[in-house]
């Protein structure tokens, strides 16, 4: 039962709340990422209305810990969520049971205005491979309960890892029904591969959602380039109940693509005609809002226009996930971006999609990991993807535009059994075998790629299109193509990968059912996808 609303008296940091509901269980060993400092003016009273309108989330599971996240926003569509420039103490608990009878860690963090009233708690001291339940409280308000799961011990030999792959959730393109179904799956973790928000304008009815009850203020029609507007955009997205359900169900591991900043940007090069220095300021604002609004640790916190998002997460000896950032360090798109045929620059070894440092980090990590499987959680389609013509048109924004980097990654994958590339970006489901030379379909595959469709971007979609049919004919390594919305559900066992492509018939209204459109398996030691 929820506690009654109770305006908090003067702030007492770390004070035990009333009714014993949040009694501290065990030592509060968690590291609050936003500790109280003398600079933070504390609010005299708790928010009057429910500040947990944006839900809760957890992410980046480790064997002994996980990041817990929430953000206070009693009026989520207003600047700063309707709160003043003041901090609020937020108590948190994590328990072994959903009734919170066995609280294992608890503490108090501060939701600071400087961080958009977000809260990041890096909980440690948990048991590996276990389910936990967590919640927050400020004043008399209690958050929804989230469920999370720690990673297996580094030395463990898990029988399986279950995960989903999601990406591209344009609010204006439809409802997030996919997440309602995803939340009901049995998963260890969700990989989100970019385009969490879109920077485009949103009309008062939420674009193609046509929801007259939404009544979005016209601030959502402004070009998003300052921190306050990026924060409001995350608030809009995170107010979606289906997205909240998916965050509350599993820990997420996220990376970004372009729309978290601006469509098709490349490092410091904007797509549109604005000065490079102005764009870097926009990027800094976007990165800051991204960190504030995701369950990420302090090493990921941006410093100005730079943010270290690439990182590794290990799941015992079964799998290691290398989470990549193919936006921040890339060379500008070759031959002016877009679809190009015969573009020689795409092969220039001086051009990189990862940047030298991240590429070295990745290749070194792939060589060293020693796990049964190696997961590359990243944004862009790695398999060659032809768009007709002879020579074929290729998309300069994808790995096709950075062929030298692709060769290096695939050469390493050829020596590392069990490499699986997870991809978002294109709003299409593809199942692809990866070969060092896509022109030689008879050569054995060295890895497999699961390209997951969008959650909503692109609207309802269709099972196939003439272009997809043509691509299948032109590219023997593309074993499946589908342009509906949904996500990919995956299971890794000791020797087999299974991928179920889960699709929805529509997203232009709520309540779509979900079906498994296709399933594929691949053997760890002989990579290559085949229908399950």
């Amino acid at each position, binding site marked *: 039962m929820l506690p009654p609303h109770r305006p908090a008296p003067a702030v007492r940091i770390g004070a035990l709340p009333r009714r014993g509901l949040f009694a501290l269980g065990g030592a509060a060993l968690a590291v609050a990422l936003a500790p109280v400092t003398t*600079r933070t003016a504390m609010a005299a009273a708790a928010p009057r209305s429910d500040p947990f309108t944006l839900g809760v989330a957890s992410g980046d599971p480790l064997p002994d810990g996980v990041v817990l996240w929430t953000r206070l926003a009693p009026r989520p569509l207003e600047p700063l969520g309707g709160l003043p420039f003041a901090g609020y103490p937020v108590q948190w608990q994590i328990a072994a049971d959903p009734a919170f009878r066995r609280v294992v860690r608890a503490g108090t963090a501060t939701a600071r205005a400087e961080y958009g009233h977000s809260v990041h708690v890096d909980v440690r001291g948990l048991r590996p491979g276990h389910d936990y339940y967590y919640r927050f409280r400020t004043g008399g308000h209690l958050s929804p309960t989230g469920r999370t799961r720690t990673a297996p011990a580094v030395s463990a030999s898990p029988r399986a890892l279950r995960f989903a792959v999601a990406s591209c959730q344009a609010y204006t393109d439809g409802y997030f029904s996919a997440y309602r179904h995803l939340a009901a799956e049995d998963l260890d973790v969700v990989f989100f591969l970019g385009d969490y928000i879109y920077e485009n*304008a949103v*009309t008062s*009815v939420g674009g193609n959602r046509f929801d007259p009850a939404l009544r979005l203020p016209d601030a959502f029609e*402004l070009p998003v380039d*300052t921190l*306050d507007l990026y924060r409001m955009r995350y608030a809009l997205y995170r107010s979606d109940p289906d997205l909240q359900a998916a965050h509350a169900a599993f820990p997420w591991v996220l990376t970004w693509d372009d729309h978290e900043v601006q469509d098709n940007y490349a490092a410091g090069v904007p797509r549109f005609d604005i000065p490079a220095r102005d764009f870097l300021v926009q990027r800094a604002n976007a990165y800051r809002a991204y960190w504030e609004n995701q369950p990420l640790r302090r090493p990921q916190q941006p410093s100005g226009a730079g943010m270290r998002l690439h990182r590794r997460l290990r799941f015992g000896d079964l799998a290691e996930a290398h989470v990549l950032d193919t936006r921040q360090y890339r060379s500008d798109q070759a031959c002016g971006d877009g679809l190009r045929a015969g573009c020689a620059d795409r092969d220039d070894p001086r051009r990189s999609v990862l940047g030298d440092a991240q590429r070295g980090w990745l290749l070194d990590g792939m060589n060293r990991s020693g796990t049964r499987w190696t997961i590359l959680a990243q944004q862009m389609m790695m398999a060659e993807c032809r768009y007709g013509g002879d020579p074929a048109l290729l998309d300069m924004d994808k790995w096709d535009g950075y062929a030298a980097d692709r060769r290096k990654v695939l050469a390493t994958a050829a020596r590392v059994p069990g490499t699986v590339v997870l991809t978002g970006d294109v709003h299409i489901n593809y199942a692809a075998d990866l070969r060092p030379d896509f022109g030689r379909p008879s050569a054995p595959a060295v890895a497999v790629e699961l390209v997951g469709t969008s959650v909503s971007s692109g609207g309802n979609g269709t099972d196939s299109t003439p272009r997809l049919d043509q691509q299948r004919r032109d590219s023997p390594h593309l074993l499946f193509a589908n342009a509906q919305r949904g996500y990919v559900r995956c299971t890794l066992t000791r020797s087999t990968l299974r991928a179920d492509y889960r699709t929805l018939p529509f997203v232009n209204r709520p309540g779509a059912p979900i079906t498994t459109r296709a399933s594929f398996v691949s053997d760890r030691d002989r990579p290559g996808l085949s229908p399950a």
Partner: protein
Amino acid sequence: MDRTRAHRAAALLVIAATALCGPAPATAGPSRSGVRLSVDRATLPITGQCNGGELRVRLTNRGPAPVYADAVLTAPAALHLPRRLISTWLPAGYTRTVPVAVSAPAGTPTGTYTVSVTSGEHRVAVPVVVSPARPSADLARSAVRVSASSSRTGFPVCGAVDGDADPAHWGHGTGWADGTGRQWPDWYELTWSGPRQPARVTLTTVGSAQFPTARYGLRDWDVQLATAAGWRTVAAVRGNTAVTVTSTFPRQRTGALRIVTHAANGLNDQSRIVELSVS
């Protein structure tokens, strides 16, 4: 301003002075005074919903290190600002300029209002003078309220009554397009402060090399007037292929006029009105 509002405003300024322009906690911050605030317009004359103006708020970091800075805009409820907060990263020596549109909803009493912009210890007050709309032979220009079933970003309702009927300017904020796409009908409405007596409506849709009428232009619409019994259709256009169409009808008193659109040519996706004039 009543005492409560004055008290709130004072409280806000205190908060602003103590809490805004804080440096990024992760970085070594300069003093708050490292950020300088300026606003381009000393005064801002506007005449209502479709004749607003724009302030340009400038934040300059004169300190030696990057900061995250905030500027808060306060204005009486009579004025409409799409944003009341600007937060941005500011590298050392960098100036961020943010335009903020200011308009006055229909029915705003004429007079002088004040928009205050506060950042750290800096505060700039800009008088906003709301004047009556100028008399015009084009009744569309003197509407006190312009509204539509929906609007596409970059194609606001005010764009179709801005006096610019050149189809070549389509896409530059000088026309209206609905926001739904392939959903009909849409409507576009003018409301006056008192009765008018229109007898003639001229509607210009798109028609340029980039946006040919045959592919993007409006095809079918009704002209309706508000009556005591509800909306009454006084003219109908069907199968249009022209850029500009004038409809005439018996002159009559009304407080509002609307265009109800039913179909477009070619793509048949959106309602596109470059300009609407009424006489």
